[in-house]
């Protein structure tokens, strides 16, 4: 293995991990509240706001129906506004996190909807406020499912960063395109693929492990 290959892959991996971690955190901070909003504001929810629910639902569907590469391009002006450039990892992070937040919101929505209505009704019968129900019932009860959902979202974000690499974001995606594809460096191409597989596998394993650990503590065996 040539030393330039190692150096390329190392930098690429660092850039990818940087983008994935920061994007995941921002997507999480945006997606969780939106997911909660979707559930509580729905008809029969603990704080029904049907118009808000409908509008948020439509916005999410619009963003989610766009191909990722187009979404990145559309969000570039926003990236320029926030980080001052359309190139590099930081610009990509803006696009990726805003582009992934709707997926995360839907995943959180799904998880929260699995919580039995009876538990929510019990909390209501004890005089809990909507905020207390969210914090003390909905989120804790759905936690194992949320962890699994977040795992899926992070893996989606890894794919997203690879695509962002195509338009100058750096990372393993850009490495695969610039070296592997345009300069016929098969070793670089194979290297990036192996690293991506390892990253995705590790995240899946960690996610499954955490979800199982929580369930085991609660004596819920799968």
């Amino acid at each position: 293995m040539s030393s330039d290959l190692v150096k390329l892959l190392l930098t690429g991996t660092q850039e990818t991990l940087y983008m994935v971690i920061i994007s995941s955190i921002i997507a999480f901070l945006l997606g969780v509240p939106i997911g909660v909003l979707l559930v509580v504001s729905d008809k029969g929810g603990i704080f029904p706001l049907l118009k808000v629910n409908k509008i948020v639902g439509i916005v999410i569907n619009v963003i989610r129906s766009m191909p990722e590469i187009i979404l990145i391009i559309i969000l570039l002006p926003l990236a320029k506004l926030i980080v001052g450039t359309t190139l590099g990892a930081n610009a990509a992070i803006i696009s990726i996190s805003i582009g992934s937040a709707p997926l995360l919101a839907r995943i959180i929505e799904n998880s929260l909807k699995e919580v039995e209505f009876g538990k929510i009704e019990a909390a209501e019968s004890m005089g809990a406020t909507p905020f207390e129900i969210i914090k003390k019932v909905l989120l804790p009860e759905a936690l194992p499912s949320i962890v699994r959902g977040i795992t899926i979202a992070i893996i989606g974000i890894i794919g997203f960063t690879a695509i962002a690499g195509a338009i100058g974001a750096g990372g393993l995606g850009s490495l695969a395109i610039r070296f592997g594809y345009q300069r016929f460096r098969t070793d670089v191409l194979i290297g990036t693929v192996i690293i991506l597989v390892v990253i995705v596998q590790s995240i899946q394993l960690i996610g499954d492990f955490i979800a199982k650990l929580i369930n085991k503590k609660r004596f819920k065996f799968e």
Partner: protein
Amino acid sequence: MITVKNVSKTFNTPTGKVEVLKNINLTVENGDIFGIIGFSGAGKSTLIRCLNGLEKPDFGNILIGENEITKLNRKELRNSRKKIGMIFQQFNLFDSRTVYENVAFPLEISGYKKDKIKERVEEILELVELSEKKDSYPLQLSGGQKQRVGIARALANEPDVLLSDEATSALDPQTTFSILELLKNINKRLNLTIVIITHELDVLRYCTNNMVVLEDGHIVEQGNTENLFLNPNSDTLKKFINITEGFQKNRKFSGGEGI
């Protein structure tokens, strides 16, 4: 005292409007164990949910003590609910919380301090005889134990009224008996008013003093439980009694008495 005056409720369903409660009037005295019986779909669950405002009647008034449940805004309603405990057929415990934390829930949301919560939870777990299970999770418990946690949780805030929504319907006969014993015991010790809805005749016969019979959303009969059992007038109550007796008369074999 619980007073229900002219309460009606209609649900809009995809197949049209369904009148689930029709002009309901009833009174429950303080310290009473009061039963509501009816077949499935008679409106029992809706009626009991109106008592703590989980459902809002279209017409009529509901008073719990001096408190007019039907006139309260959201915040006032939440505060009133803290004094109305409720237990459920499916227990509805929080799987993410231990027995201790489940019972602590109503105290947490009432803003009690940690040491006060500890004191109260331990006291109430002793009452339902579950002290040694305080660090267990609901999924480790049997049905009867789960319902005891449900009762402890409902009583933690020292309510004036306890609503029981088919609380024994998912339990075996022996466990049902022990839960009813517990409810009777609590009623006596705390002078707590208990409203029980059920489709099990034995539950009514065993622990209620007064009852109403609900049929198709209206009350067809009400009064002292013993009197009603001795002289049932409504078709529904007669049917309930006949079915129960029919099971006894038409047994495939006799025996088993006095075990």
